[in-house]
């Protein structure tokens, strides 16, 4: 492979806590500023300092943002992993190596640049303590030089990050220049090149958790409770930042929001229920272990019909699992979280734009449905930076659902908390504090009738459960529909959700020239809307792509459409790394080949 323009990956191997984040972000932003689509994936350990960490920048003219399996340029800075990192590089690749690192035997079809990073940084930073941090900027200079990133853009990108610290900026810029000068003097240019384009103008770069936080703010959140857990903490922290900035009166110092860092996730969801019960727009954000703790209250929210918005930024389980790796394996537990007969509404963001939109929509749905609404994101979406169109300001006001005021009660003259007045399974509620003799209501998780009175009556229990099932049918018509792209005459359909979307986009482009034309359904929510059945019915074989071991989405589809179950095949990826296109291509081709042989 020689002379690849705007289609390659740079893989940087460093040590956690060494300050490589700024360096990697600088490289990524500089490419973005040159108009070339990029994505960055941070592969980090569950550790504060000292363990290996990797950052992969994918440069793609075509705008592919999924992970790629192979990398083209390696920056090896970590002695612990350098042997393995180098061994993973294929023919034609470029290896930028910190001089003195252990190396395996390297075949001659790899280009190796040994750089005396330490020597280059020493004259710039007299204090040895800070060298460790600044040395990363030298590789920024080296890489920028060999792949052809405009030095001005590197400077701009660095300025954007360190602009407020002129001293640090100056030192770091000097390090970048030292790297560039060294490369210009001693190294050739790599076959992998960045060339200016105009494909990022007007676009933004943002992490999914940040986007979700913005959505929640514009959705009118008034209460957040949370307990720190990776990879969801950055959502709560970003939200706190936005709310402090835009929702606290600068003159009076008074806030239109309350944030509580709870003592655990049981308390976090309990606080959400208390606040929602009073009419606040309340949410919590968590990840696997925290989700498990929220189980009992989720059932309460479902049965007593109290709105709640719960973001689950999925990481790898079970148990503590791999806390800093990505997964889609919470799906089944979220779908039925709680003992007893429950089923929940789930939004499935695939993009940072979805995160923003669902930040708002989740509140509308929870209040409309008086039910828990989960947003199932993942670490890849939540904690990595994604390119996107800018977000749109909401056009609709908001939907606060069926709430009766004192005036309503006077007009109607009657209030029954759990009566299905409108035939959609959704009852009316009153908020505590409503000044009307009819407003009071006793909310309980034990058996209750339409008037919210305690009962263990068999028929009444079943009737309430049937109404809740009916409400779920109503939810089907309210949740965002899937996005369907039909290829004419295609026998094969692909169904995916969440971040698998990006790998599917690319996989379809790879499959088409190989004679495998595919249609595509990107699922945005559970319960499934009617388009899902239509999609399954109109294809011979539907590959369900998901990032878990057991085919959890396929299982849900089989439950819902048993007659169509034989059409479903699973494409699975569950090693904690984001799914890549090749995995999908390989698994589909294998199954298709088996099918041909069997015929």
């Amino acid at each position, binding site marked *: 492979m020689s002379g690849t323009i705007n289609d390659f990956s740079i893989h940087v191997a460093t040590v956690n806590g060494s300050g490589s984040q700024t360096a990697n972000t600088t490289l990524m932003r500089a490419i973005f500023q040159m108009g070339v689509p990029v994505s960055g994936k941070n592969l980090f350990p569950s550790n504060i300092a000292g363990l290996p960490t990797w950052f992969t920048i994918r440069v793609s003219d075509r705008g592919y943002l999924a992970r790629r399996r192979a990398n083209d340029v390696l920056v090896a800075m970590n002695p612990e992993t350098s042997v393995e990192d180098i061994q993973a590089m294929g023919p034609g690749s470029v290896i930028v190596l910190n001089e003195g690192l252990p190396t395996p035997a390297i075949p001659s079809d790899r280009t190796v640049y040994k750089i005396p990073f330490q020597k280059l940084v020493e004259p710039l930073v007299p204090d040895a303590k800070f060298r460790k941090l600044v040395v990363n900027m030298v590789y920024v200079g080296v890489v920028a030089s060999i792949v052809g990133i405009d030095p001005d853009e590197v400077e701009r990108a660095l300025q954007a990050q360190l602009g407020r610290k002129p001293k640090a900026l100056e030192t770091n810029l000097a390090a970048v220049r030292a790297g560039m000068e060294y490369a210009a003097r001693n190294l050739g240019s790599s076959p992998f090149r960045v060339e200016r384009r105009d494909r*990022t103008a007007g676009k933004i770069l943002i992490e999914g958790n940040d986007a979700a936080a913005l959505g929640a703010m514009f959705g009118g959140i008034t209460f957040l409770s949370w307990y720190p857990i990776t990879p969801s903490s950055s959502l709560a922290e970003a939200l706190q930042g936005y709310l402090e900035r835009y929702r606290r009166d600068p003159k009076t110092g008074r806030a239109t929001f309350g944030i509580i860092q709870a003592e655990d996730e049981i308390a976090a969801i309990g606080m959400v229920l208390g606040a929602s019960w009073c009419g606040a727009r309340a949410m919590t954000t968590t990840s696997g272990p925290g989700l498990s703790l929220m189980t009992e209250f989720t059932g309460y929210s479902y049965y007593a019909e109290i709105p709640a918005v719960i973001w689950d930024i999925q990481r790898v389980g079970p148990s503590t699992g791999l806390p800093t790796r990505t997964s889609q394996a919470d799906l089944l537990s979220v779908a039925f979280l709680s003992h007893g007969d429950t089923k929940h509404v789930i939004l499935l963001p695939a993009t940072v734009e979805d995160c923003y939109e669902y930040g708002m929509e989740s509140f509308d749905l929870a209040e409309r449905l008086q039910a828990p609404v989960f947003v199932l994101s993942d670490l890849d979406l939540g904690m990595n930076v994604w390119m996107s169109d800018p977000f749109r300001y909401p056009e609709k006001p908001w939907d606060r659902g069926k709430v009766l005021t004192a005036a309503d009660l006077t007009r109607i003259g009657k209030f029954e908390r759990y009566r299905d007045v409108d035939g959609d399974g959704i009852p009316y509620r009153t908020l505590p504090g409503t000044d009307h003799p009819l*407003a009071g209501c006793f909310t309980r998780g034990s058996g209750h009738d339409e008037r919210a009175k305690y009962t263990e009556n068999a028929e009444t229990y079943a009737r309430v459960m049937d109404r809740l099932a009916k409400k779920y049918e109503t939810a089907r018509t309210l949740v965002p529909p899937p996005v369907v792209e039909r290829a004419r005459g295609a026998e094969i359909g692909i169904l995916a959700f969440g971040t698998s979307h990006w790998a599917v986009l690319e996989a379809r482009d790879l499959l088409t020239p190989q004679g495998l034309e595919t249609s595509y359904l990107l699922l945005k929510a559970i319960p499934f809307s009617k388009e899902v059945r239509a999609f399954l019915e109109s294809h011979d074989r539907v590959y369900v792509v998901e990032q878990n071991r057991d085919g959890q989405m396929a299982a849900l589809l089989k439950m819902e459409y048993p007659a169509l179950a034989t059409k479903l095949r699973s494409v699975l990826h569950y090693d904690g790394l984001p799914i890549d296109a090749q995995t999908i291509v390989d698994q589909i081709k294998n199954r298709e080949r088996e099918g041909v042989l069997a015929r």
Partner: protein
Amino acid sequence: MSTVESNGDKNRIGLTLNEYKGAKSTLCPGCGHDAITGSIIQAAFEAGIAPHRVAKLSGIGCSSKTPAYFLGRSHGFNAVHGRMPSIATGVFVANHGLTMLGVSGDGDTASIGLGQFLHLVRRNVPLVHIVENNGVYGLTKGQFSATADVGSKAKSGRVNELMPIDVCALAIELGCGFVARSFSGDPKQLRPILRAAFSHRGTAVIDVISPCVTFNNHEGSTKSYLNVKEHDAPLHDITFVPHYENIEVDYPPGETREVTLHDGSRITLRKLEEDYDPGDALRALEVIHRGRQEDKFVTGILYLDPDKDSLDADLHLVDEPLATLPLERVRPPKKVLDEVMSSLMTGGA
């Protein structure tokens, strides 16, 4: 539906006692919890609390069922076992104008809910937190709870050897500004305590010994009616004077202490055996420990600090309830989104 006959008299907001009652109790006849319900009804009536301003909260247990039996016009939230404090915290932040009245049990507070209880106190969420303490799990049929006294005998004959958890001592330790202990069979003491608690700005912990007639009222049980009556050691006589009444309590000098609450109401404590200063936390802990050593139930207002800031001071919320703020107060204008978007827009052309 009422359990107590009404006298037809109206309180200062024009409501009768009946209008503070709730559904008929389904507890065992004679259960201490029902007596506490009676005191709550009476205290709320006397205080002239507007029922629609009250949020009744509870966990799970026989005790936690009782909010259904008082203030039937108020909103109630019968939560899951041990988690009432988190509900209260959410309610308070969403609508800090509500008066929160919570009922829990000793199992609900001192076992499964101990963590949430402590954090509630630590945050000083304004909840009147009543622990109806019978030393057993009533609803699951009489197992020992974590407040069972050392040496207390269960119906089965088993004797508890483990140290009891004293919720009052824990609350004092965490700086709770209102800590009291009382006895379900002493409404004369409990009522002014409740009324004072309604006026307190912050968590008010009231541990009320409340015998379980079905599972813990036998000989050998320390929390039987008989044993509690015999070992009840009140610290003082309590009189509550609400801020809207201008009554002078007439006691000989040197016999009383008076504490003024945040809303201007006053608590007058008339000394019994010895002078007791409820503003002294160390003294309060000493009295609790000594009482335990001497097999006495020390009752009364154990600790008071009316000036402690509650959670809202920390959050610095707007005056109106967050729950009902209009859209324009909680959705920033388009220029804010534009500002954020342009800060993220560094792509080149």
